[in-house]
C-alpha cells in the first residue's frame, strides 16, 4: 500500500469533508480524488470509508467496478484509444497495433519515461470521425498512424 504524505492525506480528507453530505456521494468523491491525484490510492480507502460511513470493502468494491477509476499512479498524460465498432470499421485495430508498438507498451501500462499511460475506451462519441482517441480530455478524430505519431510527439513534452 502506498504511504501517503500528510499533505495528500489532508487533501483527500478535505475532498471527503466537502462532498460527504451529497446523496450518493461516493462517485463524486472518487472523481474528485482522481481529478486531484490522478488515481485513487489504496490508502485513501479508509479515509473515504470513515467519512461516508461505509465499509472499506464497499468502497473498494465500487472502485474496482468502474474501469475509469485507477489505483496506480498514471503517467503524465493518459491516452484513451477507442476500440469500439465504428472505430474498428475505420482501422482502429491497425491503429491500436501501431500505438502499442510506438509506445512500447500494452493497454493499462505506462511508458518507462512516465510520459504516457495507455487505456482502451469503448466509444468517445466521435464515431463519424473514426478512429478516435482522447488525451487528457482532448479529443482527436480520423487518427491515422502518422497522425498518431504527430499528436503524441506534441504531447511528449507537455
Amino acid at each position, binding site marked *: 500500500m502506498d504511504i501517503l504524505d500528510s499533505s495528500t492525506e489532508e487533501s483527500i480528507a478535505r475532498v471527503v469533508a466537502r462532498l460527504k453530505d451529497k*446523496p*450518493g*456521494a*461516493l*462517485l*463524486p468523491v*472518487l*472523481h474528485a480524488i482522481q481529478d486531484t491525484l490522478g488515481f485513487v490510492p489504496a490508502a485513501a480507502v479508509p479515509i473515504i470509508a470513515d467519512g*461516508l460511513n461505509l465499509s472499506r470493502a464497499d468502497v473498494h*468494491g*465500487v472502485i474496482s*467496478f*468502474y*474501469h*475509469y*477509476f485507477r489505483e496506480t499512479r498514471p503517467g503524465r498524460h493518459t491516452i*484513451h484509444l477507442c476500440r*469500439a*465498432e*465504428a*472505430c*474498428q*470499421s*475505420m482501422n482502429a485495430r491497425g491503429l491500436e497495433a501501431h500505438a502499442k508498438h510506438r509506445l512500447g507498451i500494452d493497454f493499462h501500462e505506462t511508458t518507462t519515461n512516465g510520459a504516457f499511460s495507455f487505456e482502451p*475506451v*469503448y*466509444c*468517445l*462519441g*466521435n*464515431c*463519424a*470521425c*473514426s478512429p*478516435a482517441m*482522447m488525451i487528457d*480530455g*482532448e*479529443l*482527436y*478524430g*480520423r487518427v491515422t498512424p502518422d497522425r498518431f505519431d504527430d499528436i503524441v510527439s506534441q504531447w511528449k513534452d507537455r
Partner: protein
Amino acid sequence: MATTVFVPRDAAALSLGAEDVARAIAAEAASRRLDVRIVRNGTRGMCWLEPLVEVQMAAGRTAYGPVTTADVRALFDADFLHGGAHALLLGPVEAIPYFGRQERLAFARVGITDPVNIDDYLAHDGYKGLTRALGMTPAAIVQEVTESGLRGRGGAAFPTGIKWKTVLDAPADQKYVTCNADEGDSGTFADRMLMEGDPFVLIEGMTIAAIAVGATEGYIYLRVEYPHAHRALTEAIDVAYQRGYLGADILGSGHRFDIEVRLGAGAYICGEETSMLESLEGKRGEVRPRPPLPAIKGLFGRPTIVNNVMSLGCVPIIMDKGAALFRDYGVGKSRGTLAIQLAGNIKRGGLIEKAFGLTIRELLYDFGGGSASGRPIRAVQVGGPLGAFMPESQFDTPLDYEAFTSVGALVGHGGIVVFDDTVDMAQMARYAMEFCAIESCGKCT
C-alpha cells in the same frame, strides 16, 4: 460593425482542429485590423465538413469547410467575410442538401445559437415550452406528452407520457427526474451533440418533466468520456440558476427544481436504467431486479423518471408547438423525428434529424454518399451491441420501431455503424463476446 464568424465548439469539430482554426481566424483578423466577432456554436452535424466555418451575412449564413489553419490566410485573401469565392466555399448552410432535407425539431437550435448564451436561447423560442407548461395542470402536461406519441429514444421505445403518468400517480414525499446521458453504444453521438450544442433544451425538458410529476431534484448521469458536454452543461446550469430558470422559485411559479450533473466512470452497463440508479446512489452499477419499476421505486427508493437525453430534448418543442406538430411527423407507431447518426465507414458521416420512415439505403447513399473507403457496403450495425448487424438485403427496412423488430433488429438510439466488404464478421462476433465479458456487471454471469 463587426462581422460574426461561427466556429463550432462541438467535440467532433474540435477533434479535427476547430480550436486552432478559431485562434487563427482571430489572429489573422487582428493583424489585418478587421473587426471580427467569433461565436463558438454547436455543430450542424455534417462531420465530414468540420471544422465548418460560417460567416453571418445580411441574407443569412455562408459556410466554408472543412477549414484547416493552413486555409485561414487564403480565406481572408478571398474576402470570405463577405462570402468571397474560395475552393472551400459551400454557400448557404440550408442549401447543402444533407442539412436542407432534414426536419429539425429537437436540434432546431443546434449549430445556430451560442450554446451557453441564454439570451440566444430565448431569442430562438427557448423556454416557451416551460412557460406554457407553467400555466397547465400536471395531468394536462402529461397528457400533451402522451398525445405527441413520443417514445423513449434511449433504446426501449417506451411511451414517455405513460412513464410520466406512473410517476405522477405515485404518492411520495420526494420524486426525481433523472436524465440518462450515458450514451454507450458505438455509433451514437446525438445526446452528446445536443448537450454540447443546446444544453438549455435538456435543462428545459427536465424542468417540464419535474413540474409535470412533482419532482424537485434532477440528475444528469453523464458518461465521463464526454468532458466537452460536461463543460457545456455546467456552464448552462449556472446561467439557468442565475436567471431564475432553476432553483427555489422557477420564474416566480413557486416550483423548486435543482439539477446536478453526475459523472459515470466508464461502465457500459450503467446505461441500463436500474444500473444507472445504483451508480447515482454511489454503488456498483449492478442491475436491479424488476419489478419494482423505477417510476414507482427508483432513485433512493422514490418515484423517478428515467429518460434519455433525446427524449427529454423533444419535450420543450412538444409543449411549445403542441402534441399534434410532433405527432404529424413519422410513420405507424413511430411518431416525430429521430436523430439518426451515420458513423464508421461512411463518406458523409454525421447527424440527421428526420421523421421516422427513411430506409437504411436512403440514409447510406442519399445522405451518406456510400462508404468512406469507396468499397461496397457489406453490413450496418444498428442499435449498438444489443442491436443487430443488418446485411445489404435488409437495407430497404424503414426506420420504424415495429419494422425493425419484424426483421429481428433494433432501432435503439438510432446509430448506424457502416462496414465495407473488408469487414471480418467472425472477428466482429469475437469482439462482441469480449466486450460482453469486459462490461458484464457480474449479476447473472
